[in-house]
């Protein structure tokens, strides 16, 4: 009962992700068809790889029949970003059996990581404020995660299939608004969840450095700059703590 409630809660939280996934999955289906990929290949890639940036990144080389090693290395590099996301979520799934974790890990994506991660952070913080040790158990967190992840996954796969057949015909202004939905929602979530002053500084620094980083290296740049920003502020904070402990 509680599992179903948490799953529904996750689905509600995922609605902005669905809205954002519709145009991007359609765009992927249309682009893949234009590159000569077959319907089965498009749907298989969306369902099995389930990674928009990696799918777009390898589309050209894959369709042009370039070396399979080149395609696989590019895809692997793009998908490495799932490693820290999955590691950050894992502590919240305490007590869940490994088979269920294995199966559910397939729907880890940037979007299905951010929404549950911020929700779990908030619940942990609220539990800490009220003196509880844990706010929810691992299965309840998994249900919330699956509510977000599985529903977004379905939207992505179905959208890709539609994209194969449907031409993209959004007016320019509407397209621009659709592009804003996901980053706008994430920014709003961060603002609501943030406490203290260090985190806003970390966020602003990462935001401003993301574009120069991505321009320097489209695959790694923004990831490296975000990591450097976080490590820099964490290091400064650790140093300040040690200095105040010594004095």
């Amino acid at each position, binding site marked *: 009962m509680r599992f179903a409630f948490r799953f529904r809660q996750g689905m509600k939280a995922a609605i902005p992700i669905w809205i954002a996934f519709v145009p991007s999955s359609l765009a992927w289906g249309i682009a893949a068809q234009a590159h000569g990929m077959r319907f089965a290949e498009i749907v298989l890639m969306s369902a099995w790889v389930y990674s928009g940036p990696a799918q777009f990144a390898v589309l050209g080389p*894959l369709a042009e029949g370039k070396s399979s090693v080149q395609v696989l290395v590019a895809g692997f590099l793009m998908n490495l970003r799932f490693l820290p996301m999955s590691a950050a979520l*894992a502590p919240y799934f305490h007590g*869940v059996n490994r088979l269920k974790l294995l199966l559910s890990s397939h729907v880890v994506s940037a979007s299905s990581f951010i929404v549950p991660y911020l929700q779990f952070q908030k619940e942990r913080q609220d539990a800490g404020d009220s003196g509880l040790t844990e706010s929810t158990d691992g299965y309840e967190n998994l249900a919330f995660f699956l509510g977000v992840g599985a529903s977004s996954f379905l939207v992505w796969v179905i959208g890709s299939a539609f994209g194969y057949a449907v031409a993209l015909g959004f007016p320019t202004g509407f397209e621009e608004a659709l592009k804003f939905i996901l980053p706008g929602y994430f920014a*709003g979530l961060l603002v609501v969840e943030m406490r203290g002053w260090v985190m806003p500084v970390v966020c602003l620094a990462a935001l401003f450095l993301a574009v120069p980083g991505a*321009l320097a290296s489209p695959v790694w740049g923004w990831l490296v700059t975000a990591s450097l920003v976080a490590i820099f502020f964490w290091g400064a904070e650790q140093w300040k703590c040690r200095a105040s402990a010594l004095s």
Partner: protein
Amino acid sequence: MSRIGIILIMGLMAFVVRALPQLIFVGRRFPESLDRLLRYLSYAFICSIVGVTLFMTGGKFESHLAPARALALALTIAVAYITRSAVSGMLAGLLLVLTLSWLR
């Protein structure tokens, strides 16, 4: 190798990257300082995603659209902060983006 073969291997590699941390780190509470580092990394990572998805398309910086999008992002942050609602913030930013694109 066929395209289907490449897709299958690519998906398998993505699955391993996603699944490994779930099996290694499940249920573990990191030490306080490590937990803080992970939180900083995650938030920085999210902001990077916001920056890249908002201001770039196809690996290129969209300088002509950046001021309008930055303005909409600032409005989103302000409204979300005041109302303590992410959706209200997003809707306010969305309306501004639509208005600015219609005015262009």
